[in-house]
């Protein structure tokens, strides 16, 4: 059970599949003693009644989910949560996904294309093995660029390198949507700010109830505290306090490690 492995679960959740819109997420509690974790939906199939959960194994809860086999059940799944992406026809849109952020980006990219936009997509991962949804993203966009940090596939470098090139080459880009690890979103926004291009990001802070009840997910946007679960998860990327977000995401590192070590040892 390698950490950082990307895992894909197709879950039978007909009511959520019917209702979910691009940009929304679910909360999953695997079993009686499990924690509530927010996961993004990499796609839904309303007719089959399924949703796709795509996540990286980073701690105990995701490691536990990874052990599920076909036919197993997740005890609790709650959604769709969060505000859907506001999609309209604005011209040229660049959709940038990094790591498992590509999963969230896929339905959003598709929606922008369906709304009549010219969609350029950039997806990146640390290496070829961690790259996900390439075929799907190709179909969902007009022009797909791929990067890997180690150069094992596509452009050798970061998604921001490719984005910079695009922004240099053409000035019709009306919107950049960036979803991925916080450092990626932070640098991406720094870049687009320089070009004056509006940028939306989807944030992933720690959540508990994810219905606006606890405030665990508070983020500072434009100097104001927002609850990511109900006010987001998408925000104007140029207004987000990323340093605070990173610190808050790391609040339980010690406990998360202890929990994962215990899981590896006793298997539950």
């Amino acid at each position, binding site marked *: 059970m390698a950490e950082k492995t990307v895992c894909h679960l197709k879950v039978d959740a007909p009511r959520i599949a019917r*209702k979910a819109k691009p940009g929304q997420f679910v909360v999953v509690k695997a079993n009686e003693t499990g*924690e509530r974790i927010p996961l993004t939906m990499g796609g839904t199939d309303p007719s089959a009644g399924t949703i796709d959960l795509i996540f990286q194994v980073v701690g105990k*809860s995701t490691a536990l989910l990874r052990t599920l086999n076909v036919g197993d059940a997740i005890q609790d799944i709650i959604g*769709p949560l969060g505000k859907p992406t506001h999609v309209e026809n604005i011209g040229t849109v660049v959709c940038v996904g990094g790591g498992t952020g590509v999963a969230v980006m896929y339905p959003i990219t598709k929606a922008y294309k369906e709304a009549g936009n010219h969609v350029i997509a950039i997806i990146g991962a640390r290496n070829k093995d961690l790259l996900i949804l390439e075929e799907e993203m190709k179909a969902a966009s007009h022009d797909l660029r791929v990067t890997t940090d180690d150069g094992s596939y596509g452009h050798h470098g970061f998604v921001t390198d490719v984005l910079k090139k695009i922004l240099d080459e053409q000035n019709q880009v009306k919107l950049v949507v960036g979803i991925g690890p916080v450092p990626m979103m932070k640098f991406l926004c720094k870049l687009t700010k320089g070009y004056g291009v509006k940028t939306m990001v989807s944030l992933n802070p720690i959540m*508990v*109830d994810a219905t*606006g009840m606890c*405030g665990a997910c*508070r983020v500072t946007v434009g100097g104001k505290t927002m609850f990511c679960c109900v006010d987001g998860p998408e925000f104007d990327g140029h207004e987000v306090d990323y340093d605070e977000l990173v610190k808050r995401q790391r609040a339980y590192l010690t406990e998360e490690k202890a929990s994962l070590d215990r899981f590896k040892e006793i298997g539950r």
Partner: protein
Amino acid sequence: MEMVEKEKKEKPKIPRQKMPEQEAKVRAKNFNEVPLGYTPELAQLEASRCIQCKKPKCIEGCPVEIDIPAFIKRIQDGDFVGAARKLKERNSLPAVCGRVCPQEDQCEKVCIVGKKGEPVAVGRLERFAADWEKEKEEVFIPGKAPATGKKVAVVGSGPAGLTVAGDLVLKGHEVTIFEALHKTGGVLIYGIPEFRLPKDIVQAEVSYLERLGVKVECNCVVGRIETVDELLTEYDAIFLGLGAGLPQFLNVPGENFCGIYSANEYLTRSNLMKAYLFPRYDTPIARGKNVAIFGAGNVAMDSARTALRLGADTVRIIYRRSRDEMPARIEEIHHAEEEGVQFHLLTAPIRFLGDDNGWVTGVECLRMELGEPDESGRRRPVPIKGSEFQLECDLAVVAIGAGPNPLLPATTPGLELNKRGYIVADLETGKTNKPEVWAGGDIVTGSATVILAMGAGRKAANSIQEYLMSK
């Protein structure tokens, strides 16, 4: 001789019987319930203090009008199960109310015996009877009215929703409760700690409703998975018992440092997610050594006492007004003090201090003094110039109240809200301005008590019943 005669005539006064409880030092380190409940002997002794008034005041003092003298009479007679059934004629959650009702402001406040001495301990007797019935497994399932074919949706499974569901299922309607969280009970599950209200008691109350035929759907965030308008196509009536679940923050600099929780988050982690059992349960919770709690209501006391049980050395309640204005029940304040919680009154936080990792390290406060009364009738706290000082803390909990969660109202067009975002509903019937939609409890009144929410649920259930049967 004369003296002896007189003594014979005057019944010796029995003092109000204390409830045995865990010793303060022991209980501050565990999550078991603090008061242990009356023994049958103590219960009968306490019940004997009730003088069975011809015109009892206590019934009027109860938001759900329990026939208090009648249930106490049964305890006097040793018919404990009968006492529980008498309670349940008016109150579907007696084991809960016996524990968390502010009886000192309700039935016990107006008790005739209390005029000259201490009132009859109605709450403790209520708890005793309800627990007795449960322990003896004599829980009575009353007969239901014939099925009406009418369907009622109850949104929220807190005290208001549970009361509506219990009342209407007995009238023969098909009742479904929709709960956003993965467990039922609302604030009884996520808010009130185990040591004050054991969760198996809440669970038993919900199971009782399920045995009556109430359907329960957890993990349903109405407003997202289904809107109120969508539910209305399937249900004849809807009751909104959403609670006041939006945490309020202090809005001072540094409040987003790690280790600063809303009381909702702190208590939800501990109670609902059982983080106090980490790592057996997966949800973590910060265990501070030096804890600051802001606010002085019941939720603040619950947070302070939780922090002690999670291993804190020092727990301080920081409150900007004085002791007289503290909104918590006297019993809760007393319990907290006994366990070692410190009270820093007339003190207001102005900013949090933190380290490079973004963790809270302290709080800067101002001393206050009381000025003229404000709109709440309480004397307004006024800062004393130049009185700034710093307190160290590695964990802080903000327990200064909660507001209405806008999620459902925002997705329900045409539902009237007041300017603070609460649902406008008739206080006598629970009717909102939207046809076929009722509301009650904290989402209408703002944060109040379990029993007031149940009272609102009862009134709404009566109004829904009237509406359904005339339809």
